[in-house]
Every structure is written in C-alpha cells, then in structure tokens.
C-alpha cells in the first residue's frame, strides 16, 4: 500500500509539473487576448461616411434640435411632458447634451477622420476629403447658428490629449465654414483621386451634386450674415447661389427607411407630445395651401387644426407625412431654400429676378412637398404678388418646417411675428440654445456663460 501511494505521488507530481510548465505564465498571460475581435482598429472611409450622414440626418435636422426650435417657431406645439416644458421656453443644458455629443463625436469627429485619412500620401483622395469638408461645414453651420461660439480649432483632438478645447468665436467659425467649403470645391474638382466616394447615402458619390451642395451651404451662411455684413453678405450669397442647386433633384436629403425610421416619426410613435402649431396651420388654412394635408394629419374631428402656443391641445393635428412618415427624408439643404436666399439677396440689392426667384422657391417647395406642381394654386396665391422681405421669409417659414432655418431667419429678420406662448417662463422666445451640461461640467474653463435670451454674434 505504501509503495502504491509513492507511485501515485510520483505520477501526480509529474502531471502537475507538466500542467504548470505547459501553462506557463507567458502562454497564459497572452496579451493578444486583449484585442477585441468585434471592434476593428481601422475602417475605410466608405464605412465612416454613411454613419456621419445618418447621424446628421437623425440628430442635426431630425428630432432633437428641430423639434425644440420648431416648437418655439410655432410650427409645432409641445402639448405634453418635456415638450410642453419646451413650449414654455425652458431648455436646460442637460436637454442639449445628446445633440451636442452627437454633433461632436459622431458627425464632426468622423468627418475630421475622413478628411485626415483622405490626405494620406500615396493614396490621396481629395474628392473624399471634399465630401468630408462639406459635411463638416454643414454641421458647423447649423451648430453655430444654434450655439454661437463653439470649439473648432482645438476640437476633435481627444486622442492627442486635448480634452478641454477652447471656444472659437462665431465669426471665426463662419470664416472656417467658408474656408472649408472653398477647399471642398477645389478638392471635389481634383481629378487626381485614389479612392472614389462610396457609401454616400445622400448623393451616391455624385461629385457634381456635392459641389452644388457646397455652394448652397455657402449661400445659406453668407445670407445669415446680412445683419453683420450688409450688402456684401447678399452679394456673396448670390455668387454662391450661381453654383448651387438647380432643381429639387439636387436637395441634400438624408433618407430613412423601414428599418431605420424618420426621427419625428419615432418621436410621435414613442412620445407623441407634439402637435402642429396653430400659427403654421392657420397660415396654411387661410390660403388653402396644398401643402397642408402633407404637413398635418387630420385631427380627431377630421379637420386640420393646430394647438396654440402653450395651449396643450392634444386633439390638434399631428405632423403629417412630409414631416413624419417613417420614410420621410430629413433636409440638410434644399433647392427651395436656395431660391428663397436668391430672392432675398436680389431684393435687398435691388437686383432684378427677386420675384422670379421667390416664385420658383415656392413652386419648388410645393412640388417637393405635394409631389404635384399645383400651378393653379401658385397662380392664384403666389405668382405675381409683389415680393417683399416679409413674403419671402413667411414662405420660407412655411417651406422650412422640420429644419433649423426658420429659427435662424426669424432671429435675423423678425419674420414671421410670433406671440409669446401661454405660460411662458421667460418674457421672450429664446434666441439661442444653452451650452450642453457636459461642456459646463467637463470644459468649464472654456465654455462661455450664456442665457438662452442672449443674442448670437450675427443677431446683435
């Protein structure tokens, strides 16, 4: 027995010895195990591009920013819960955290990665760089029109350990936008391109349309400086218009589909707290506007009605198919907007063609929204009626539902005149968004102190 045990000991020790040696530290502590097999270290530009575009369509011109300022502009009325809070002009830094973070980490960060990747020597792809620059400029433009000064020069440099970026003035951001768009136009014209633009859900790699988009965005922001630059702004805008969109087919739209549904559609499905605003609906109804049934659903009585600002009328019409169908595209920039820009610039400069541009803008809008020309209605209500700034901005206001532009135009021009919402907690419609709570918390040394009643640089 004793002897047997000794043999067992020996065998055991041998087995354990082999076990320990075979699984020695170096083999066991294999650092390759710490490489995530589900997360690539690098991806091609064509896979980054649709992600940027999706985020822009969903967040920049989707529900978050647009719902809030369209409530303020009375296109919508927040009838319940948080949307009712927004109706009463309450918008806190925490409320804009999500959109701020989407803009910087999803849209602008990945656009910057594309721009940098496209410059890699040996495989330089200026066309791709140009597309990245147009997207970055478009994002910067809408962002600065809501927030004023924003980080750019030191932004997107977290991986270089710049964790608290300084803020660039709105004037400087505007210069950046124009310069990015100029570079984009040059890059899009460059025929020495290595990697073709693929993965593009907006223009499917059509460089010509990207050039038009670059010019159109440029026109938008030159016009926005009308109060700062006066006639120079109009002149610059007109110059850009000439290279811009030439029909609705050029519209810079972000598509939605069955699987990935329109943001307002999703909001109405999951939250339901907004209804069409009485200001817009009354305006449309008064003119028997053909866009009405596309902008609004029938209300519970089978009519089209809006909730007055702060009126909490949840029996009013819900947003219609043009705004809130599950597959309704969201609009980064449209041909109709460009024609309104042209009309305003020509009118301001006293140049001919303002009337034509105005009529073309409304016609483009009606066609885009309704799918039909509605010529008779245009002839009766728009065509030939002498163009004024108020007419232009009012029609632009109707055209611009579910975009950020009416809010930008209202601050710039004061049109249309809006009443203060019932139950408002401040005496005026906010003139800017607050900075995100995450900036107040984690970039406190740089973020300017603002109130939502402050006016932006171009709005002084």
């Amino acid at each position, binding site marked *: 027995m004793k002897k047997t045990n000794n043999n067992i000991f020996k065998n055991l020790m041998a087995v354990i010895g082999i076990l320990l040696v075979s699984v020695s530290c170096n083999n066991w502590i294999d650092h390759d195990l710490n490489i995530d097999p589900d997360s690539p270290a690098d991806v091609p530009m064509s896979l980054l591009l649709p992600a940027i575009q*999706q985020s822009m369509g969903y967040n920049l011109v989707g529900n978050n920013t647009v719902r809030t300022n369209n409530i303020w502009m009375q296109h919508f009325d927040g009838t319940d819960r948080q949307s009712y809070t927004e109706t009463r002009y309450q918008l806190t830094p925490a409320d804009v955290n999500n959109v701020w973070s989407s803009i910087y980490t999803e849209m602008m960060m990945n656009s910057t990665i594309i721009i940098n990747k496209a410059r890699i020597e040996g495989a330089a792809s200026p066309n791709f760089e140009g597309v990245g620059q147009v997207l970055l400029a478009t994002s910067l433009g809408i962002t600065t029109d809501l927030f004023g000064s924003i980080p750019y020069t030191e932004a997107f440099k977290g991986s270089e350990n710049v964790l608290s970026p300084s803020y660039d003035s709105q004037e400087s951001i505007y210069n950046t936008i124009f310069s990015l768009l100029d570079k984009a136009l040059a890059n899009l014209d460059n025929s020495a391109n290595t990697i073709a633009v693929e993965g593009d*859900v907006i223009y499917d790699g059509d460089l010509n349309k990207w050039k038009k988009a670059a010019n159109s965005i440029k026109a938008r922001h030159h016009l926005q400086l009308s109060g700062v630059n006066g006639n120079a702004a109009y002149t610059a805008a007109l110059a850009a218009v000439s290279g811009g969109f030439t029909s609705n087919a050029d519209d810079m739209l972000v598509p939605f589909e069955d699987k990935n549904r329109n943001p307002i559609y999703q909001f109405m499905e999951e*939250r339901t707290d907004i209804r069409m605003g009485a200001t817009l609906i009354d305006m449309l109804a008064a003119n028997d506007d053909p866009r009405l049934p596309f902008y609004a659903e029938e209300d519970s009585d089978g009519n089209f009605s809006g909730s007055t600002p702060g009126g909490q009328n949840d029996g009013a019409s819900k947003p219609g198919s043009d705004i809130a169908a599950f597959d309704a595209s969201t609009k980064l920039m449209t041909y109709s907007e460009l024609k309104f820009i042209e009309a305003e610039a020509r009118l301001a400069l006293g140049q001919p063609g303002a009337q034509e541009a105005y009529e073309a803008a409304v016609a483009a809008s009606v066609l885009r929204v309704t799918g039909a020309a509605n010529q008779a209605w245009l002839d009766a209500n728009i065509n030939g009626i002498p163009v004024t700034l108020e007419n232009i901005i009012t029609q632009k206001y109707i055209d611009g539902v579910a975009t950020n532009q009416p809010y930008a135009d209202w601050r710039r021009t004061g049109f249309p005149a809006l009443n203060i919402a019932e139950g408002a907690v401040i005496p005026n419609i906010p003139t800017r968004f607050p900075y995100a709570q995450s900036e107040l918390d984690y970039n406190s040394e740089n973020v300017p102190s603002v109130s939502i009643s402050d006016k932006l640089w171009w709005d002084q």
Partner: protein
Amino acid sequence: MKTNLNGILTLFLALVVQLAFAQQRTISGTVTDQDGLPLPGVNILVKGTALGTQTDFDGNYSILGSTGQVLLFTYIGQKNVTRTIGTSNIIDIQMTEDAQALEEVVVTAVGITRSEKGLGYNVQTVDAEAISTKPNADVVNSLSGATSGVQIVNSSGEAGASTFITIRGSASITGNNQPLFVVNGLPIASGGGSSGTGGVNTSSRSIDINPDDIASVSVLKGGAATALYGVRAANGAIIITTKSGKNLNAKKIEVHSSMGIDVISQVPGRQKKYSQGSGGTWSGGNAASWGAPIAELEYDGDSSYKWDPNGRLVPKGTGNGMPAKAYDVYDFFQHGTVSNNSVSISNGNEQGDYFFSLSNRDQEGIVPNNKYGRTTVRLNANTNISDNIKFGADMAYTNSRAVQIQKGSNVSGIMLGLLRTATTFDNSAGYEFADGSQRNYRNGGGYDNPYWIANNIRFDEDVNRFTGGINLNVKFTDHLSLTYNTGIDWYNRRYVDQFKINSRGNPRGYLGEYMNFNSVFNSDLLLNYRNDITDNLDISLTIGNNYYSTNSKFLFGDATGLEIPDFYQLNNTSANTTSTGTSRSRTMAIFADLQLSYDDMIYLGLTGRNDWATTMPENNNSAFYPSASLGFVFTEIDGLKNNSILSFGKLRASAATTANIAPAYQTTNNFVSAGTADGWTDGVEFPYAGQTGFAVSSGLGNPDLKHETQDSWEVGADLRFLNSRLGVDFTYFNNNNTDLLMDVPIAASSGFTSVFLNAASMESKGIEISLNATPIKTKDFQWDFVANYTEFSNIVTKLADGVDNIFLGGFTTPQVRAVVGEEYRSIFGEDWYRDENGNVIINDDPTDNFRDGYPMTNTSQGLVPIGNFNPDWTANMTNTLTYKNLSLSFLIDVKSGGVMYNGTAFAMNFFGVHERTENREVYYTADGSIDFDRTPKENIVVMDGVYGHIDSDGNVVSNGTKNVTPVVQDQAWFQGNGSNFGGGPSSAAMEPADWVRLRDLTVAYNFKKLSPLIKDAQIYFSGRNLWIDTPYTGIDPETNLGGATNAQGMDYFNSPGTRSYTMGLKFTF
C-alpha cells in the same frame, strides 16, 4: 489499488443497499449537555461500522449494537465521548463543552479553513438554518439582515428580480462593486441583472444557487480576509460551502417542500374624485385626470364610442343614468405563488461521502405572466483513495427560466401605464380590439394598457448552467500536504424579447434574440506545511498558484417591423440586424500565506500575492498584494484565563493591499458599428440604406493603465461573557481606494465623450457591531438574540482633474452621481430658488411670469445635490424563541437615513391621479382671486418658504419674511412646478427612505419521531416583509429602477415590492 476500488464500490453500493445487521440489540438513552439540557442532533456511531444515528429533539436516541462494541458520541462544541456497550441497554451521556469549542472553523480565502479563534479580521458566517426557511429565490436576499457591513437591495417584488449586494460600501466608481462569489472553492460568475431605466428586470446570477444545498456562507468583508484573491478581492467575498455527507455515517434523506403566496405591499394612493380630462371637463383619451368631478358624471351608453363599453361620460342627467366611477387600478395585480421542492440524499464514512440533491422552484409573480422557475441538480462526492489521498468532485446543474415584464420609464412599462391611467378608465374592460389595435386610456396613444403588456409583450429568459470542479488532497507527511482544486462555471443565457404589433414602444412589433455563452475556469494549487515548531509556536505555511480565465461571447439579432403578426422569427421582417460581442481575460498568480500562532494567544498572519493580468498593458500587467493580520486572545494570559465572566476576549488588527483590474479592451481605441439615437427614441442603426457603417468609439482607450489599489485596515474586538452566553464583536474598518479606473467623461467637443483613466479615489470607513446573547436557556425554553449594527461613510475623495462629477445612472434630472467630497451615489437634480439660508423663495412679484405665492424652479444653476439613498446606519435583530418543539424566529431590519427619488408620485401629480391632487376644488371671486369662503379649507395651503423673486439679472431678491400667502394646489400648480413634466425640480420629489421592517418571521414546529421511517419532521410558516413602517409614500422603498447597479435610490414607476407568506414541510428520513 484494488482495495481502493473496492472502497469506492462499497461506497456506491451503500447508496442503494440497506445493510442489515444481525445479533444485535437496541441500545437507547438520552444525551444532555453540561447544564443537563437535552442535546438534539448528537451523532452516534458504532465504531468500526457504518451504523450511526442522531439524537432527536429531546436528546433521545436508539441504536443497534452488541456487547463490546464502542459507541462514539460527537457534537460540535462538545468533547467526543466513547462508551463500550456492556450489559445495560440504556446508556445516558452527559457531554461537556470542549475548550476548543470556540475554535469554530471558518472557511477563508482560497478555501483555506481556519480556526475563528485566531482570525485577525472580521468574518461572519450564516448557516443553513438561516437560509432554508426563507422564501427568496436568490440566496443573496436571504443574507439581508443576517450580518453587519453588508448592504443588499432587492430591486423589486417581481419574480426573478435582481438583487444588489455590496460589502463595506463601494470600492469602484463605475465598475463592479459587488463581492466575489465562491462556491466550494470555485469563483463563479455572479452579479448581472442591471438594466437601464426601462426594459425588464432580469435576475442576478446568484439566483442559480439552490439555497437548500447551502451548508454555510462565510462573508469575508475586509482586505485582509480577501487578500489571497488579489485582483478580485476589493469588494469582499461571499464564500459558499455546500452540504456534504461527511461523517454522517448513515444515509440521510431530506425532503423540503414549501408553498407560498406573494401579495403587493404598499402602493401609492390615487385620487378617486375627478374624472379623466383637463380644466374640469371630461375628455376621453386625455393623458390626465383633471376632468369633472366623478359624482357629476354619468355614461351616455353610446356603443359607437369604442374606447369605453359604457360610452362617453356626460354631465348627470344628460346620459343613460349609469353613474361614473373611479376604478381601482391595483386590481391588476394578482397573488403571486411560489412552490419549492427539494430532496437530497447523503451519506459518508471513513471511505468517502456524497451529497446528491434535486430541487425545483416555480414562481408566478404579482404581475400576470411574470414567472421564475429553477431546477437544480447537485452531486458532491469525495472518496478517500487511501489514508493520504482524497479525491472529490462536485457538480451542479441549474436551469433558471423567467418571463419578465416591461417596467420603469418605458411606454410599455407596467406601472407607468397603470398608475397614469385615468381614474374613470377601466383597463380591464378589454385591452385589444378585433383589428389587433390597442385599447388604452389614451385612446390608442400614450402608453400601453397594462393588460396588453402582460399578455402581449414578453421577455423569456433561459439559463442553463453547469458548475463543477475536482479536488485532490494529498498528505505527504503529517506536516506537508498538497491541494489541487480546479473547476469550471459554464452557462448559456438566452432570451427572446417579443413585442406584439401595436405596442406603443414598438408599434410594428419587435423581436430580439440573444444568446450568450459565459465561462470561467479556475485552478488553485496549494502546498501546505503545518508544524508545531515548539510547544508554544505553531506554524502553517501555504504557497499556491492560481490560474483564472473568463470568456464570454454573445450573439444578438433583432427584427423591427414584423410582417406576419404574432410570428416571432428574425426573418419575419424586411430588415434585421445582428451583433456579437466577446470578452476574454486571464489572470495568473502566485501566493503565499504564513500563519504563526504562539501559545494559542497570539496569532500572526502574513499573505502575499502577485497577479498578472491580460487586460492590463503588457508592460504593466503585474502587481503585488500583501496583507498582515494579528489576533491577540488576551484571555489566554494567565491572570485572565478561565474567567467565569469574560470567557473569551480577542483583539485583532489587520491591513492589506488588494485591487481591481481593468475590464477587457480598455487599452486601445477602436471603431464600432455605427448607429445613433437622440435620447427620446429608439434611434437608427446599421445596416442602413444598404450600407455598413462604422464610427470611432466615443470612449478613448488608454495604453498606460495601472491596477486599482485598495489599502485597507481594520481593528476589532471579540468579547464573550458568561460561558459565551453573551458576545460582542466590534470592528472599525477603513478602506482607501486609489487609482480607481473609470471612464472619465470629457467634453464631447474633444471628439470623444470619455477616456479610461486611473483617476479617482474613494474612501469607505465605518463600524460594525454584532451582539449575540442567549438571555434565557432552560430545559424547555430558550431565547437567542443576534443583532448587527453598521454605520459607514463612503466618500468620493478624488475624481479626474477637471471632472467634478460622474454620471452613474438615472435621468437627465435627477441622476445619481459620484462627486468629490460627497457620499458616493449622491443624487443630483434641480432645486427651487432659495435664499442664502436655504429657504425656498416664494414668488412675491406680481409682474413676472411666475405665479405669486408659489416656489420657482431654479433652472439656471443646473443640477445640485438633493440627497442620497445610502443609510446613516442600519441595524437588524434576530430573536429566536424556542419552546420545546416550537420555535419562533423573527428578524427586524432598520434602515435609518437615506432618501429616494419618488418620480412616480411626481409624475402622478402631473396626471392628476395622485391622491394628493384630490383636494383641488377651488372657487374664485369676481376679481379672480381665491374665494376663501367657498373653497374647502383643506384645499388651501401656504407654501413653505420666504417671500422673494428673481430680478432681471437672475438674482434672488428676498428680505427673508416668511411666506403666509394662501394658495391652492390646482391643475396649474401640478402641471407646473408641482410635477416633473411641469418643470418642478427633482428635489421636490425626494422622500425619506428609512424603514423599520419585519423582514422575516418564521414559526416552526418540530415533530419527534413520527414513524420509524421519519427521523425528523418540521412544519413551518414563514413570512417576509409582513410589516413595514416607512415615511416613503410610494412602493416599498427597498427598490431600484436600474436593478443591480451602482445607481441606487431611483423610483420611477418601479414595480412594487411584495409581502410573502410561506408554509413549508421538511422531512428527514
């Protein structure tokens, strides 16, 4: 070898063969203790045979034996007694207490058993009795109130709900704070069951353990106790030992059956006087209940109005005469039922032992269709291959299955749809129309009808789990031995998440299919040396090696927009998405444990462990963790020895450095599959528009990570008086956690939202006092008393530079945060405008937009600290009264201090359904002011605060005069600052969450020898949460919205807690 095989054969034969013995007679007698009181459960063995028995509850026994054979009487804490059978058939025994009785053996880290007498740190043990009669599915809930220093929060009363446990506070900011669970030496996967603010409440994986299998649970609290677990030691450890057949010497069959019912405990009150609608007018489909008085309404009987079978509500006299009424929404809940059956068979002798068990639990929750079920099988077997070699294996299989129902902040959440339901809407009058669309109080919009949810949305979870290990013990000499213990914990977790078409959350239907395989491998090799160096000095040295690896992989697919209704298949959609995730890690360690004891008086322990980990950067993957502990039994000093008053006294002190490591994949920055959401909606993902999309991960990796460090120390005293009839144990502990790893949030404008850094520090310190006493002990009656008191603070001392708070969970407001200088998990939210003395400002400026006489929400200062769920102190007392065969045991649990966000009530205010909105009747005079003569007195209130207003610069202007302006709490108030949706501050919804509760009560009756077959039988009744006294006005405040997460203290339409009644039977054959 042949002998050994025979031994094994014999052992297994013993399973099925009852051996008969001839030529024997029955010996009987009574066994008593040194006070002459009967001792039940004394083991009696006929030496040299497998024949044995136990004394019954009166200390009586009988056994077959023949003259000359030797009877061995053994009982824990008593000296062994042997008697040779002579001529008498009666052998009465009086046992005496063993001086070594205090040397209760406890299981410590890495399975090393150690005499409790010499421990230099606090370990508490919970035995099987305290667990098996409690009705909880998850054994962790049965530890509630059983020890000091342990905090347990059961997230809700749903069947299979998660449970959150921490020991001595938290050690990590955003990482795991729950202890390591070890079963029979194998560290197992535990935790889980956390969720967001919506979704379902899934189980914590500790639920997979059959409570009836547990012999004892050791709670290792401090660093010195857990130091040998190295990188897994920072949160304490729960060491579970399952039952075995060791030394039974007779076959033992135990059967345990219980049946129970659960009923909802407290729920928020709802007003019953006013109908659905707004502005005093009934309006069908309206979100709120600010309509006309119910007493003034009747139905119109219009059958074309599809939302109510009785038609619309119209003013009295204009309808069909059928009066309106308020429905009781709580009728929705049902009585939950629990049935639990387990059977075990065990035996053991010198050649080996086994324990085999089967159990099944089936539970239906208080919410219809919420279910939890568990089936377990366990076999523990050991064989002594020779005197020197012991080999054993244990294996357990568990199937855990649950059907969970949507909860919380979720348009398909049960309580959300239920509690918001308008007073005059009857959810139970149908939830679905013939066309499949939904009937709910919002006339199809808003939130799901709770009946719809319970019947049409399900989350089926199924876990199949196998844990098993083998252990080998080889004794080379009396001094030197080797132990090898290795095991695996494998489980496969699947769930199917189904939303029927027309649910509000997923109107076009939804299916999610998830599969996860999770494995843990552990190997411990220990070489032990024990020797008495001199008469006074004993040494014990263990050196060891540990390998540990984890591997987890999931595959998830979902389909939104089902084409064929009610057909839940991933291809039943125009588009579906899939994703996978992997997490792998390994650690290796070598360790040593040196224990010295001098004269049974001074015990010194030193341990050291070095860990290497794959999740750390390659050049920084090693760390060393030492500990030292000292136990000084001063009652061994000559002058104090054998003192009749102070029978035992020990002072102890220990210190240790332990740690946590980074989770996998934090050292680099990668790209991830893209997708986005806006905080309001489900959002969008990829594939999208026929494209694949990636984006750079918003969390920055870090190649310079270090191990987290926990430096801890504790001192304590263990004093026992009057022959241990009274004992007091006191511990002071201090845990200092530094270099804590966390995703440090950074400004999104950097392009990233977080970076993973060793950034934070946190301190946890406090006291634990345990008291145990046996105030009365007579032949028939005994009263035992055990109490625990815990008080500690858990302060965040440092976060990353430039970061003053970390989001742990919750909402935009309020949210749970870690903030420097504040208690960990402070709740932050908006507050009222206040003056510099903290008084609420009551508006006195008739020209501004704020209502006069009411407070105003300060939206400009952002979020401020508004409370914390952590208690100031907790205490629990267990009294056990035994009279003859009857015993009564009850546990009173006290939590003092701590607040919770009652978001449920705050939202119910907005909807005009909370009972506090009932006093709303108000009359106005011609000039628009309140008519105090006609308005009922109880409806007029004066808001607490001082007069003031906000000037144009946003500053508070107040002269500090106390507000006396009477106002009414009307719809405008509750849909304004009196509720969350109206813009009221979260601070107004914080409520004290203290409690005193009768957590457990058990009455048991033990039957003496029912029949020759049945040795023991017990019938018991047990109740849980039979009585709760709390100032909290919502559901039972032992709840948490996010389940088992670091973010505690949130109640937003949480599912209610339960009161349980259980009746059980136990038989021992």
